[in-house]
């Protein structure tokens, strides 16, 4: 196999693996649930995207014709990951999951739970 193609595939794979790992590290390191939601939805999705593109290049090279069906998984994940994150955030709000003390604007939580508009804040 051509050296440059190998280099391209390897770097895509390593980048993807790194982002997936960062997503999981975030899942362990971050301190509360709302903050934790950010790492898997963003980093893991991009990491999987990297691995899928790498796989696409590899398969295209291996079989001699363009294979793009890996893009379907990427498309599916880009559409569904935000939905999952939104539902989990909703559940967390409704279950009154504790959050970091330094989270700002915690007053929004009580109205958000009832799906009501925010109360008018007094101007400082």
């Amino acid at each position, binding site marked *: 196999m051509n050296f440059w193609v190998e280099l391209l595939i390897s770097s895509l794979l390593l980048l993807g693996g790194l982002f997936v790992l960062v997503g999981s590290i975030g*899942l362990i390191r971050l301190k509360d649930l709302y903050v934790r939601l950010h790492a898997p939805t963003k980093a893991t999705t991009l990491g999987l995207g990297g691995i899928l593109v790498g796989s696409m290049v590899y398969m295209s090279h291996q079989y001699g014709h363009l294979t793009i069906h890996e893009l379907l*998984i990427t498309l599916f994940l880009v559409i569904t990951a935000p939905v*999952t994150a939104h539902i989990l955030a909703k*559940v967390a709000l409704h279950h009154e999951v504790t959050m970091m003390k330094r989270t700002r604007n915690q007053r929004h939580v009580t109205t958000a739970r009832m799906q009501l508009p925010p109360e008018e804040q007094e101007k400082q």
Partner: protein
Amino acid sequence: MLEWSMIAVGVMLCVALVLNLWRLLIGPHVVDRILALDTMYINSIALILLYGMYSGTQLYFEAALLIAMLGFVSSVAFGKYLLRGDIIE
């Protein structure tokens, strides 16, 4: 080179899966566990695709697509159950 980078990425994905499993076990709240499970689905898709590349077949693509769909549906079902089963009704 490609072989070695595939092995390296496989190790990374396995470490990521172990970290997710840890969060699944210690997760202080149910939502943490669902989040860890959802992340595990995505990581296992990546692992399956990597194994497909490693063995040079396209057979595993369908498995990855199915896991993506089932993972999404099950996470949303868990979320809906927690939303409607406990709080509102």
